[in-house]
Structure formats: structure tokens, C-alpha cells
């Protein structure tokens, strides 16, 4: 199946208020897309984690919010891109283990459990891109 993108919008994340704004927009889209309340909370919480990471650890960036479809499946894909220092050891961060970046790790590892597809691309000096997709169910 090929993924169809049915709508796409981009939002900046430069202030803390933008984190809340992105979260609200994702919640509204998930509801319109037919997500139940549990799936809506899961996707919205994931969006909140990733937006906050971009703002706190990434020095800001942007969020792309897309309605996607794959055959009969309907979902939402979120892309968060920041201009931060990047992550040298992604596996270690995803394990959520060590203290200086514990909040970063918790947000990333927790979000990975809330969505259906999770991709992260990061290396020192290049910033971080996280792409998540969730289909219409918890």
C-alpha cells in the first residue's frame, strides 16, 4: 500500500505557547479524523512530548501535521524537526536511563509506545527529526 497524504500543515515551535498550540491542533485533527478518546489522548500526548522536546532540548523547530491514509486505514502523521545539538546516542536516550536527559528520554520512549510508527533521525550538529504515525485506534 502506498501512503496518501490528504492534508498537511506546518506550525513553528519557538515559544512555550507553541507547544500548547500544536497540542490543541493535533487534538482537533485527531477528533475530526475519527480517533476515539483513548487514541486521541495518546496521539495528543505524544505530540505534546515531541513539541516540548523540540522547544526545550532542540532550541525550537517546527511541527508538520498531516492526515494520511493507507488503503482503508486513516491516520495522522506528525513530523517534529528541531535545530538543537542533536543526539549522539539515540538508543541510550530511548532507554530513558540517565539523569541529565531523563526528561528527553522519557518523552521519546513514552511517545514510541503511544504511536504505531516511530522514526527518529539525529546526530550531533544536525538537530533531530522525529516522525510518528498513528492510525484510528488506541
Amino acid at each position: 500500500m502506498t501512503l496518501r497524504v490528504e492534508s498537511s500543515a506546518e506550525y513553528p515551535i519557538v515559544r512555550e505557547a507553541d507547544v500548547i498550540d500544536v497540542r490543541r491542533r493535533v487534538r482537533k485533527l485527531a477528533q475530526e479524523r475519527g480517533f476515539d478518546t483513548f487514541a486521541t489522548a495518546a496521539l495528543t500526548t505524544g505530540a505534546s512530548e515531541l513539541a516540548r522536546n523540540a522547544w526545550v532540548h532542540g532550541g525550537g523547530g517546527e511541527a508538520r501535521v498531516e492526515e494520511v491514509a493507507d488503503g482503508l486505514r486513516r491516520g495522522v502523521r506528525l513530523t517534529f524537526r528541531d535545530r538543537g545539538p542533536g543526539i549522539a546516542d539515540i538508543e541510550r536516550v530511548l532507554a530513558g536511563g540517565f539523569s541529565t536527559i531523563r526528561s528527553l528520554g522519557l518523552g521519546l520512549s513514552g511517545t514510541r509506545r503511544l504511536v504505531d510508527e516511530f522514526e527518529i533521525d539525529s546526530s550531533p550538529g544536525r538537530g533531530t527529526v522525529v516522525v510518528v504515525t498513528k492510525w484510528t485506534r488506541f
Partner: protein
Amino acid sequence: MRGAIPILRVGPNLLTTVHVELDDNIADAFQQDVLQAIERTGAKGLVIDISSLDEVDTYVARVLADTGRMAGLMGARTVLVGMRPEVAATLVRMGYAMEGVETALDVDDGIALLAVRRSVAGAKDTA
């Protein structure tokens, strides 16, 4: 931002309902308001009602747990009440452990739990 989240005195406890989305400024002000209210009133219990929060991410969860721990250092016990089903499911799925704060279904149960804890503590004191 001080006073953005009202704190009410209910008997020996303080009751507060988080009805706005927390950001750093509101969170800091809320924690300061709670701690000063405990000092001013001598409250032994704090009930934080989160029934109007549709989602709680790890940031908000940490703010709430930290608030409970701060209140605990001043001798007030905190009960978090009104967590919505979607929020409970999401936090557990994320692997987030809400450490250091007790929870109850709603405000009534939270107040009842605090009363039980106080009577147990009182029994120990007089024993």
C-alpha cells in the same frame, strides 16, 4: 500568573482544581501558591483535582508529582484526584510512574482518604 489556579480551604485540607493548561510560568506560580497556602492555613492535606485535563504529558505529570513532594516536605499529604480514563491509560502505556503521590477517583474520595490517613497518624501519635 500567581493565583491563576485558585486554591480553596475545605475543612483541614486545601482543594485546587487545575483547569488551565500548565506551562512553566503557571506551574511555578501554582507551586508557590500551594506552598504558601499550606504555610498560611496549616492545612494537613492537599487535594489536586485534574478532572478537567484531557491529557497529561510527562511534563505536567512531573509538575504535579513535584508539587505533592514539596507539600509533603511541609507536612501536608497530597492526593491527586479525577484522573480521566484516557490519561491513566496513556501514562501507564508510556511507562510513566507517578511516584510520591497518592490518587483517588474524585474529590470526595480524596478527602475521605486524607481523613483516613490523618486518623491513622493520630492513632500512632497517641499510642
